[in-house]
Structure formats: structure tokens, C-alpha cells
């Protein structure tokens, strides 16, 4: 406490924000988009795929949700190059950078959580709507595309966004790979200059302000966008 020095934060702001926070936010946005898309596909497959396929999806979702994210991050960091080799038929493990590896990890991990949200959303749409769609001659895919999913996204938007805030906080775990996300940037400076107290306090403050503002935003959205039923 004797030499609390916030100058160190000030001097390193460009690195913290332009390198660190930019990585964190890019990862959050892309992983949320990818996770929602993959999660929606999983939810549809689980609901309307055959018994084998939906069983497989259920197994996947439950497996991922049973594991700590830290373990999954380690798994993927080492595994993705081999999977890439297998998928592309390359003669050797393909090279995957830190960002790509983190992005794939978070998409695959968060998709399991997003798919549960989407599944709950799909289940909340009265079955009569699907029947009505089919009576109008729409295929199953068309019913999903034009009738069910637009409503699900609207009903579930606040929940999806809340999960995205969780994802934003979870991205800090790439720290364990020494990747320079926001926390990684803060810790690199903290360790280089021996300024743990200042850097970690500042990091905590930034995460708090961003998460708090975002969750307030979601609350207002929830009030405004509620579907009258």
C-alpha cells in the first residue's frame, strides 16, 4: 500500500487496451456468434434429429457441461492441431495460433451452453405453431427458419446476452496459455515491473465496469423486448 503507483497503469494503457482488451473483445464477439450458431444447430438436431443423432448431441452437450473450462482449454490447445491434421488429411499436425485455438475452444465449449438456452426457447414455442406451419405446406426446415427461430431468438435474447457476459469473463482463462488477452496483458506488465497490486486492481475494475454496464443493458433490453404473451 505504501507505494501504490497508478502511473504504471497510465503508461501501459495503449498496450492494455489496444492489444489486451481488443483480443478479449474480439474473442468474445466471435466466440458468441460462433457459439450461438453452432448451439442453435445442436438444439435443432437434438430436437428433430433421429434418435442416434439427438442422443449423440445430448451426449456431447452433457460431456462439455460436465468439464471445467480450464481443462477444455488445455485439451484443445494440444489437440486442435491433430484434429486439423485429421480433417485436412495433412501429413503432419497443422499449425494453429493462440487466437484460433482459443476461438475454436470457446465456440465448441459455449455452444453446449447456448444450445441448452436455444432448446429451452424452442420448447417454449407452442406446438400449434409448427402444426400450423406444416398445414400451410412449409417444410420442417422452413417452419424452423421462418416461424420458430425468429421468436426463439427474440424471447431468448436477454438470456443469450447474459451468457455472452459470462463468456466475456471466461475468456480471461486463456491466461493459462500465456496468451495476451486483457488479463494476460495486465499480468505480463505486473510481473515485469513487480506491480501486481496496481495491475490486478485495475484489471478487476475494467472487468467489473464492462460486465456491470452490459448486464444493466441486458436488464433494460429484457424489459423493453419482452414478447407480450
Amino acid at each position: 500500500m505504501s507505494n501504490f503507483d497508478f502511473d504504471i497503469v497510465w503508461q501501459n494503457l495503449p498496450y492494455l487496451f489496444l492489444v489486451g482488451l481488443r483480443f478479449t473483445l474480439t474473442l468474445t464477439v466471435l466466440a458468441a456468434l460462433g457459439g450461438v450458431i453452432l448451439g442453435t444447430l445442436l438444439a435443432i438436431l437434438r430436437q428433430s434429429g433421429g434418435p442416434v443423432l439427438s442422443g449423440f448431441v445430448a451426449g456431447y452437450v452433457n460431456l462439455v457441461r460436465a468439464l471445467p473450462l480450464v481443462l477444455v482449454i488445455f485439451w484443445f490447445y494440444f489437440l486442435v492441431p491433430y484434429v486439423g491434421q485429421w480433417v485436412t488429411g495433412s501429413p503432419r499436425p497443422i499449425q494453429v495460433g493462440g487466437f484460433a485455438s482459443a476461438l475454436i475452444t470457446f465456440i465448441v465449449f459455449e455452444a453446449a451452453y447456448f444450445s441448452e438456452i436455444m432448446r429451452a426457447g424452442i420448447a417454449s414455442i407452442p406446438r400449434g405453431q409448427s402444426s400450423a406451419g406444416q398445414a400451410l405446406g412449409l417444410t420442417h426446415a422452413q417452419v424452423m427458419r421462418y416461424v420458430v427461430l425468429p421468436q426463439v431468438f427474440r424471447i431468448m435474447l436477454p438470456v443469450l446476452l447474459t451468457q455472452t457476459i459470462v463468456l466475456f469473463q471466461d475468456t480471461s482463462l486463456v491466461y493459462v496459455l500465456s496468451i495476451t488477452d486483457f488479463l494476460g496483458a495486465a499480468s505480463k506488465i505486473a510481473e515485469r515491473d513487480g506491480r501486481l497490486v496496481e495491475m490486478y486492481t485495475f484489471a478487476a475494475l475494467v472487468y467489473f465496469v464492462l460486465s456491470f454496464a452490459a448486464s444493466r443493458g441486458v436488464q433494460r433490453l429484457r424489459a423493453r423486448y419482452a414478447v407480450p404473451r
Partner: protein
Amino acid sequence: MRFIPLALAAMLLGAPAMAAELTGTLQKVKETGSIAMGVRDSSVPFSYLDEQQKPVGYAIDICYKIIDAVKKELNLPNLKVQLVPVLSSNRIPLMANGTIDLECGSTTNNVDREKQVSFTNTHYLTASKFVAKKSEHLNTIAELAGKTVVSTAGTTNIVQLNQVNAARKLGINVVPAKDHAEAFLMVETGRASAFVMDDIILASLIASAKDPSAYVISDDAFSAAEPYGIMVRKDDVPFKALADKATREFYLSPEGKATYAKWFQSPIPPKGLNLNTPMSAGMKHAFEHPSDNPDPASYN
């Protein structure tokens, strides 16, 4: 399936004979036009971040010599170098799974590791010791009994510490840290009584500490001076041969000695401190007779 990228590359490059001959890392580098270099955050002065957070250091300079040789060999003047941050704990699997092609840091070459990866010619020799605050009055390994002692996860040092702890029943509470900087901070902030690491790394950490006079390195060592090498993939003969040739020429040249002096006997970034560590007899031997031998005894 395997032939398609290879054949494509050969056609595009207009050098079918050469492309077909390449294997392993060299083939990959030729096809992708880039090479991935594993770098460290806080292995001063081997591989660490300067004030612009750019990786610099003695091992980085050596790696660029190897990369120059690769550029020449493959006729790729614009070879792209990707810098991948690695930790002691993940560098070996990341080498095996192709994330990095060269690891430029402070990696001890030993027989156990040679089962997984290979090393090019030795670039440094250092013994495993520990640092503690002077006020703790710790100087021998026996005095660590019952204390909390930190070391960096995935290093030979933590293995040696564990072995000594078990063999001599010292009851040391061994705590792993993510990297050297974090481990040293554990000592600085009083979280751990001592940090077991290679003495040169300890010396650089002390030199850059807020109060260097507060720390002391033990006389007792956990090991003889062991060789550091640049890590390459195992069983990749052509790439290792190229790296061996490049490093051999470098160590024998005046530039090699100048590079040593630049990092160990002159002010270095980020704070301009000077480690004042002239070459030991073993180091002189290692430079005059470049070798990738993992046996510490071979450098005497």
C-alpha cells in the same frame, strides 16, 4: 489426399524436384511460407519481452540465425516468422503437435527430453540453485526443510526439487508457478521462501528486482551445470542438420562471441541492466566445440 497440397506447391513454386525432396519442418515451411518460433515471457536474457512487449534475447538472436539459414536453404527471402508465446509447461507438447517449429528460450537438454524432442548445439550451461531473501538466511538445500518453495511448472528444476525433497525427506511444500516472473514474485511477496531455478535466470531476476540487494542465490546446487539448447522436433533430420550447421558456424564466429557479450556483459533492455557474466570455462568449451550432447559432464 496427401499428394494434392504437395503437388500444388510444387507446381506453384516451379521447383518440383526440390519440393519433393523436402520433408518435415522444411517442407512445411516451404509450403506455408512461415515458420513458428516459440518464445518466452520472462527468461531473461534468453527470451523475454522488452518495453514494447516484443520478444528479445540471446536465444532469439540465435534462432534468427537459424531462420536466416532456412531462408537461404529454401530460397525464401520473405519467410514470415510467427512468434508464439510458450510456457515451460507446454513447450514440449506444442513442439510435438506442430504449433511451434523452433523453441527459443532456456530449455535444458537432457536424456529424458530427448525421447520427445531434439536440441541443436548447446547455447548455455547453468546449474540449478535457489534464490531467497537475505533476511531468511537460507543457503543450503537442507535449510529448505518444511518451507514453501516455488519452481516453474514443467522445468527440470521442479523435477530435481521434488526428487531431492522425496529422497532426503525434507518435507518441502513444492508449489508450481506458471513462469519465472510469477515464481520470483512469490518470493518477493513472501508467498514462498525460495525459488529453485537455473542460476543465470535467478541472477537476471534479482538484477531486475526492485531491490536487488535483498536477495541471495544459494551456494548449494541441485545439479551440475546443464546444457540449454534450442528445441526442434524429434526425428526431423534435415531441419536439425540445418540448425546444427547454422548454430555451429555462429558459435565459432566472432559474431557469436559478440552476441554473448551483448546479452551477458552489456546493458540489456528493458531497464539497461548488465548481468556481468563472462563466459565460464564450460561455455568457452561449448562455443569452441559446438555440441548437442545432453550430458553435463561432456562440457568440462
